[in-house]
Structure formats: C-alpha cells, structure tokens
C-alpha cells in the first residue's frame, strides 16, 4: 500500500511533516473545575478535571505530602463507528496509566498535599493519535482548572511508512502496521515526558521519527498556549464587563 505517493502527498493530502487541523476549546463542561475539548482532524477528545479536592480513598496515597492524580480514560461507544464492548479493556487501562503518569510528572503535586486531582477523558471520535490528543486535552483542562504545573505537557505522534517518517498518523496510516512513536514533551523545560513505540526501528530511523514528533509537540504547545491566552483574555474581558 502506498501511504505517501511519489508527489510526497499522503492519502488525505498532507505532506509528511504536516499535522492535522487542530481545534481546541476550554471550559466546555461547566460542572467540572476545568475542562477542554481537543480535536486533531477527526480525532476528538473531551477532558474534565475535578480538584484539587480532599482525598477520598486514603489508601491510594503513596506520598503523604503530594497530591494524588487519578485518571480515567474511556472511549465513547460511538467513537469508532464500530460496535465494541469491553469498557475496561486492557488498552483503556494501559492508556489511563500512561496519561496519569505523564500528567503527574508535570503537575506540581508537592504544592497540594492531602488532596487528589481527577482527570476524566473520553474519546468522542477516534481517528488515530488518541493517546496524544488525550494528553493535550488533559493539559488544557488542568490549566483551565488552575492547577499549578511545571510546564504544559503536550504530545504528538509520528510514524514510519513507505520509508518515510510521517507526522501525526491518522487511523488509516496507524493501521498500516508500521512503527508509531508517541512522544510527550515539556516544551519549556525541554524534557521528554513520554516515549512509546509499538514496533522496531533502526536507530537512525528512530531518531528522525522522534525528532519529527518532537517538532510536532512544539507546534502543539504553541497552539495550546494561544488557546489559553485567548481564554484568559476572554475572562478578563468578561470580568471587566
């Protein structure tokens, strides 16, 4: 199968280093302390954050002087168009864990002892890159909730198909069986917070794919910052009025 044609165009018309269209909005769930919708092309994720609030189940607390971060990931029944059961399948459990660890690493948990932060994520539409979209949505929702963070945790994926590194794989590209590298970074601190790959790649190839995904992360961070600034302006405006 040809995923990049000799003209350098992918099946959906993008070039190798182009991301899908990003749409993001915060404050979409009024009941939550913070919330956001994040879309990358046809992948759409909603995030809601509750907290920091008093810890409910003390046994979950490992370090007394740190806040506990909990994460629940789910996929809406209608998200793929394919009827699937198993709400708590292994993939969801694994994803919840990965997102929780990534977010925990960027939240200043030491500032909020004896408290817990709940992050709920639901995939409304899945078209590849849900893992990254979840992290980006969670970051937006956490920021919306005013939870102190070291940096904005952002994520983007890149793959390797037809001997070409490709940024931000959609579902068709993702199912092609090539390598898919999901990278999460803390852009200001210039640190990698997440790195996952589900196939083997030669070292040099991996490096170019990784570099491409990191570039994508930086672009997303820029976009997220814009969304948050816009939101702040809106708030200021409303307060003034």
């Amino acid at each position, binding site marked *: 199968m040809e995923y990049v*044609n*000799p003209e350098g165009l992918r099946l*959906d*018309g993008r070039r190798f280093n182009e991301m*899908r269209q990003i749409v993001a909005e915060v404050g979409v769930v009024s009941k939550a302390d913070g919330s956001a919708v994040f879309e990358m092309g*046809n992948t759409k994720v909603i995030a809601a954050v509750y907290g920091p609030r008093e810890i409910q189940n003390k046994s979950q607390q490992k370090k007394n002087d740190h806040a506990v971060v909990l994460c629940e990931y789910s996929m809406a029944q209608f998200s793929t168009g394919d009827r699937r059961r198993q709400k708590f399948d292994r993939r969801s459990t694994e994803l919840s864990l990965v997102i929780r660890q990534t977010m925990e690493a960027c939240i200043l948990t030491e500032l909020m002892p004896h408290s817990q932060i709940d992050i709920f994520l639901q995939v409304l539409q899945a078209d590849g890159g849900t893992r990254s979209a979840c992290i980006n949505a969670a970051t937006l929702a956490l920021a919306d909730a005013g939870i102190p963070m070291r940096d904005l945790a952002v994520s983007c994926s890149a793959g390797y198909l037809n*001997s070409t590194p490709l940024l931000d794989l959609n579902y068709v590209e993702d199912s092609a069986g090539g390598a898919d590298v999901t990278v999460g970074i803390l852009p200001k601190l210039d640190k990698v917070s997440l790195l996952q790959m589900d196939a083997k790649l030669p070292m040099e190839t991996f490096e170019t794919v990784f570099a491409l995904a990191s570039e994508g992360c930086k672009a997303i961070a820029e976009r997220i910052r814009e969304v948050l600034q816009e939101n702040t302006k809106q708030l200021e405006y409303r307060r003034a009025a």
Partner: protein
Amino acid sequence: MLQSKVFNKKTRGGRIQKQVREVYLRDDIYCGAFSCKSCDSSAARLSSSKIIVVDTNVVLHQIDLLENKAIDTVVVLSVVLDEVKNRNRSVYNRIRLLCSNPARQFYVFSNHVHKDTYVQAMEKESANDHNDRAIRVATLWYQKHLGDTSQVLLVTNDRENKRKATEEGISAETIEAYVKSLGQPELLDLLAQPTNEDITMEDADDSRPSKRKLIYQEHKPMSEITAGLHRGIYHQGKLRVNRFNPYEAYVGSESIGEEIIIYGRSNMNRAFDGDIVAVELLPRDQWQDEKALSIAEEDDEEDDTVHLAPDNVDDAPRTSNLSHETSGDKNAAPVRPSGRVVGVIRRNWHSYCGSLEPMSLPAGSGGTAHALFVSKDRRIPKIRINTRQLQNLLDMRIVVAVDSWDRQSRYPSGHYVRPIGKIGDKETETEVVLIENDVDYSPFSSQVLACLPPLPWSVSSEDVSNPVRQDLRHLLVFSVDPPGCKDIDDALHCTSLPNGNFELGVHIADVTNFVHPGTPLDDEASKRGTSVYLVERRIDMLPKPLTEDICSLRADVERLAFSVIWEMSPDAEIISTRFTKSIIKSSAALSYIEAQARMDDSRLTDSLTTDLRNMNTLAKIMRQRRIDRGALTLASAEVKFDIDPENHDPLNIGMYQILEANQMVEEFMLAANVSVAGQILKLFPSCSLLRRHPTPTREMLEPLLRTAAAIGLTLDVSSSKALADSLDRAVGEDPYFNKLIRILATRCMTQAVYFCSGDLSPPEYHHYGLAAPLYTHFTSPIRRYADVFVHRLLAASLGIYKLPTVFQDRPQLTSVADNLNYRHRNAQMAGRASVELYVLIYFRTRPTDEEARVVKIRSNGFIVFVPKYGIEGPVYLTGKGEKGAGDWYVDEEKQKIVKMDGSLSYSVLQTVKIHMEVVEPQPNRPKLQLTLL
C-alpha cells in the same frame, strides 16, 4: 482548507459503515509548466506550449503509445493515476516510470487535493462520471491558469466525456485524431486496436460482423459464470498451455481436484496461457475423441529445432500420445477429464516478442499492411497487427501487445509496440531471451538504490562489538568458485582440532544484514527471485554494489557472514552443529582449477593446501555416504564457451569439466543446506521455506525404461536407491554408455521445487535426487531470494531478529514460493536459450562433422544427441511431412527404424556420424541442421 469526504464502506463482516475521511486541500500544488509565472517552477516538467491531459482509458489502453518519445508534455492527473492503479498494476508501474523519467515531460498534477480542482462527488453520480468530471475540471483549470501562453487539449475516447468537455469550452480530441495531428504515420501502429465494445458505427462498416463467420463460441457473461461456478457446472483455474504443443492446455481446478485438459484452439476459446478461465467439462464420451480430433484438425508442427539436451522432464516435450500408439488400446491410456473454456475471468495479456510472418510487400508503399506476428513463445497464437512500416519490420524482432480477440477472427488482434533489433543479431536475440522469459533486466530504480549502504563500505566497529556476531577473522577462510566469479556467496574453512576432529565452517554472505524486509530493495529482490546467468551477461537480483562488493566474500577484505560450523570426526560424522553471524576475512578466492591444482601438487604443504586436502577427504566420505543412501549422481550436459574478447563471438564450445574441487565445495554446500533446513523446521514447523524433489512416477520414467528395454537392459526404479544401483550397473562396451544412460535418466526427472512447510506433510518434504528427507537453500543469498528468506528464518530461529510478518501469512508465503519457482524456472530457460543462441552463432561459420548418439526414434528419422556440444536435434531420413513414405518403418519394441528392404536400420543409443551446418530455409530465419553422413 479542509474538506470531509464521506462515503460508505463495507466492513469485513459485510455491514455497511459510514466512513469519514478528511481531505486537506492545498494551495501549493503547481501546474508544472515552465512558462507559468505564478507557480513555483522548481518541479516543472512541461516546456512545450501544447499540453495534453489524458483520461484513464487512454493511459490503460495506449500505454505503448505514451511510452513513445513522440508523445510528450502530458499532464497525468492524480485521479487518473489512482484509477489506473486499481485497474492494472503493470500499466500503473509503466506510467509512473514515465512520470519519474527526467528525459520525458510527464507531469503529475495532484488535482484531488488542489483547492481549485477538488471535486466533491454529487449525489447519485457514478464513480466513473465523478472521475470524468474531475478530469474536465482540472483541464479547464489548466486552460484558464495558463491562459494564452499554452494550448491545453483533453485526450479522451469516451464520447460522452468528449461531448461534455466541448460543451464546457474545453478542446478535446480522441487519441486517434490527436496522433494523426502529429503527422508521424508510424505512430499509428502503436495505437491499440479498438475492442468490440468500442467499435463505432463508422468502424463497423468494414468489419461487417454479419458477413463474417463465427469461429469461436461466445464467452458467457460474468453473471452466468459466477452462478455456474457456484453451482459447480463450471470450474475456475489458470490455463497453462503446453510449451511443446500449443494446441493442448491444462486447467488446474481445485473444485474437481485434478487437471482438466483442453484440446485444440476451439476448446481453448481464445484463452491465453496464464489467463484465469472458467471451464465446462465435456461429456465423458468425448474425452477421448476430442483429442484425436484436435490433433487431426490442427497441423501439429513438430519441434524440428536443434536445442540443448534437456536437463529434466520439464525441458522435454510431453509425449503423451506415445503410450496410446504402442498399446493401440484406447482404455489403456488413463482417461483425464477434458473441457472447454466458457469464459475468461482475468486476462493475462502482456506484450510478446517475435517477428512477422514472412510476406511479400503489398503493391505501393506507405499504406497499411495486415501482418501476422509469430511469437517466439510457441504457446502464444499468432497475432494480427496493422502496420504502415512493413518493410522495416520484416527483418526485425519486435514487441507486440494484444488488444482483443473477437469471435470472428481466428487470431487475436494487437498492435506493434517497439522494435528490439535485427533478427539473428546477438544483442537483439539476447534481449528476446530475457523478455520471453519474463526476466526484468531494467536498471534498479532510485528507490531501490537508496536502500544501499553508503560506499565505500567496510566492517564497522559496531559490527565487531555486536554480541550476536562472532569474530572469525583469525580463521583461514577461503573461497572456491568458477574462474572470474565476482558474486562470491560462500567461503569455507577447515581446522584440525586437538582431539583429532575437524572444525568445518561454511560462511555465507550476510545479505540480510543489508536487505531488510519491507524495503524497496527487498521487494525488488523478491520480485526478481534470482540472478540470471546468460552466456555473456548476468542480470543481478541485487544491485551491483551488494552483489560484487559489500556482500561478496572477496579475498583479503573483512566481510559479514552467516556461518554454519560443524565439528566433524575424521570419518566425516557430524558431532555438533552451530550457526552464528560472523565476521570473516577470506585469505584466498580460488578457482576450481586452482584449488584442484593445489591439492594435486604434492610439493605444496602450506596450511591452505593442507586444509583443502583435509576437506576433500571429508567431502569424499560424505559424498560416498550420500550415494550409498541412494542419492542419484545424475549427469547433465553443461556447455561452456570461449568468447572472443573483441567481437564477443564464441570461439570454442565444449562440455563443462567437473573437477573433484567442484564436488568438494558442492558437498559442503549440500551439508550446510541440510543442517539449516533441520534447524528452521524445528523452530518454525509451519512456515519454513524448503526445497523438495518429488519422486518420479513410473509413467515419467517410461521413456528411460523403454530405451533400456530395447537394448536389453533392466532398470529397477522401485526406489532412488534401486535406480542408483542399477544405473551403476549399466556399463556398456564403450566408456560413454553409462554417462548416456544417466543423461537419459536425468531428463525423466522433474525439477526440485520450493514450498512452504505448512502446505505439505513431512513425507512430502523428501528430496529424491539427494536422498535427503529435508533440504533447503541457504548458501547463495546474493543470487537467490529463497536463500535470503531462509537466512531470515535461521536468524529468527537463533533469536537474532524477530520473524518478519510475512511468515505469519500462509497464503503469502505460498505465493512467494510459487514466484520463486517461476523465476527459477525462467532463469534456467533463459540460460539455456542463451546457450542455444551462441551455439547457433558458433556453427554459423563452422560446418562440422561430429559423432552423435541416437536417443529417440521417430517415424521419419530419429533424434540425436551430440555429446561434444551437449545439443540434440532431429535427423530426417525422409523429407519432412512424408512420414516414412513407405521407405522406412519403426520397430517400436526394439526402438529401431528400419528400411523396408531391410538393408539399413538405426536403433536407439547407436552411434552415428552427422554433419552440422547452419541453413536459412527462409530469409533471416537461420537454424542449425543435422544431417546423416
């Protein structure tokens, strides 16, 4: 700009699912014209002011024309490319090649993502109409975009599309009109003939279907075929035409589990070799009659060419009618189901090479002549073509493509594609050999070459420190090959161990270190399957830097290898076997003759010579043991040429000498292959690639037995061991007799074949010729893809790499094995054809008298084998077609042809003196003729 494309897709479960796909529309798709001021011209291709846009059908049917240099400045739209890709992969590859060729002006315009030419499907619009509309929109865009600077023409043969285009203000033409406007009449030869559906009223005038006789039965419509297949009335399969009798074909049908025979052109009903057809069985009482009838009906051209002596049964003509002749009893011959073709499900038409049937030039030149094309491949029927350059083409080898075959014509119609060169010319005929055997000899594409490691390559420190790679550079490793061999696959070492045993190593080029699964390089090698060796040319499976340098285990350089290392007792028993990736440094690349000379020279006592002698001693024991087990030491007649370095003509030909050194290397290669076969099958019982040699059936050995019986020799063919023993006993008065019997035995055997272990049961894995229960190919990965595959299996069995995904896909594995068998067979056929060509060239200037042996009696003479040159051919006692003419009669039982008055007779295996000379019965059709002295 973003567009959502919504469509419905049928899922695997059969449900309909709505699919939403995004399309990103772009503003950075450029028109590709140098004259354009508004576009980025870095990728521009189109320099002329006359630009043509072609539609899908023009690309699909007129690709031969498009490939001609006279056609240029063509815009190929992405929607057209997509559709071509779906409909015909090979045409797609050809148009892609044109688009990437910098010498041609073919520009791909990605209209499907351009912001101004993207066309959303309208409700109830068919896919076809949608594409046509997209093509018109794009053409119109070009017209407006380029304005007065250029003339844009849409070329389409679709009437409706052309009408709409004209309505919308687009200039549109048919391909015929366009070609005519170019003023080069010979280009018209390249136009595909319109198929029946395309015939318009004007064209219908001269073909007058009503006046013409229907020769073939109608092909059933597809719906009826599907229904018939479903109900079991029809059987689907691939039609294979007998290479030696084009009026006989077979269809292997899964539904009845046996081959269906199709006799005669009318039952084949316009199907070509390789077509997927639907067959209907004939009534049982016609199974036998049909055969007699078809042979009587068609003039069966006997194979009267001199050719290389066959190496196995597949090289020799089938002689199915002989058993019937001898017994004279209809019921004795096994009755096989016969059938007739009712429809063609998928055509296997491609282009063919050959020449035009000699004909006189029509009066007055310049007009269109109807000529008949005769393919070199006898399985292909003659093809009718129209040409305006008959005079130029009569002496040429040409390529012709088939367009259609309607019920009224005895022969299919096609069109001329290109010339290859003058008939009889060495380069031309060599190219013919390659094309005919489907050998891809085009240069490697840039994508393939991009997979090569940078040059100059050398072993890196990472290779040395790699824990899976053992450093064997300290060993005295050397290679033994034919003189001048550049692609050295294998090297050997042999050290004496303190305990009196030997350590023996077979080191094979580590090709899979450079050829990774799924890369363009791997795909190409897999497609080619094997390197092809012609008399003066080698067509490589892998690009030259790998073949001759990086992989080749040359002397005095460090190379990566995959090694099989045994500990062997002095009586050649294997005590232990291990496999490892390694680094070696060969200290000598010897030729067989050099190695032999070293072993024979008793003054030499250096360690290399000692190692050689030790190895040879071990190899002889191993060989004897193999023969004791029943391995056949068959004889084949391999010919070699001395070539004039100046004009590249053959100076001398002779039989290839097999030395002890050859057998020594062969023995260790066999042993390595056997060891590897065991290892991979142990770890991967269902997906190993192995090689088997089927036990010949009694029926196949029949010609050998008949010949033996005629001279009072009894052969025991109950097992390979029994046959080997009786071959050993077959000693005649002259020293050549035994060899001759072995040669005759060899040609009764089929070839060994590759297969996937999961497709057969273990008893079927047997290799008859080698008397080995398991065998595979591991030792030549530079020139055989099977070995590349086996290297991957072996590496995976050792835990070095994961098994590539293809190994989990059984049908794909089977198709890989099938392709390897096909390529392997073709490579051999090409090699033989090339030798035959040089034999012909050699004898052109050297009429020779030579001794020959009668190997088969025919009604009008006999076939002789010329041992000195390894060729065989017919000797006629009576004029051709006279069939004995009453002067001679054949004594079947004694395999003898006797003159009526009893004064003269010739019997099988008899020595005769013959004269060999090249004659030209028809102009430009030279052939080697054998006559009795």
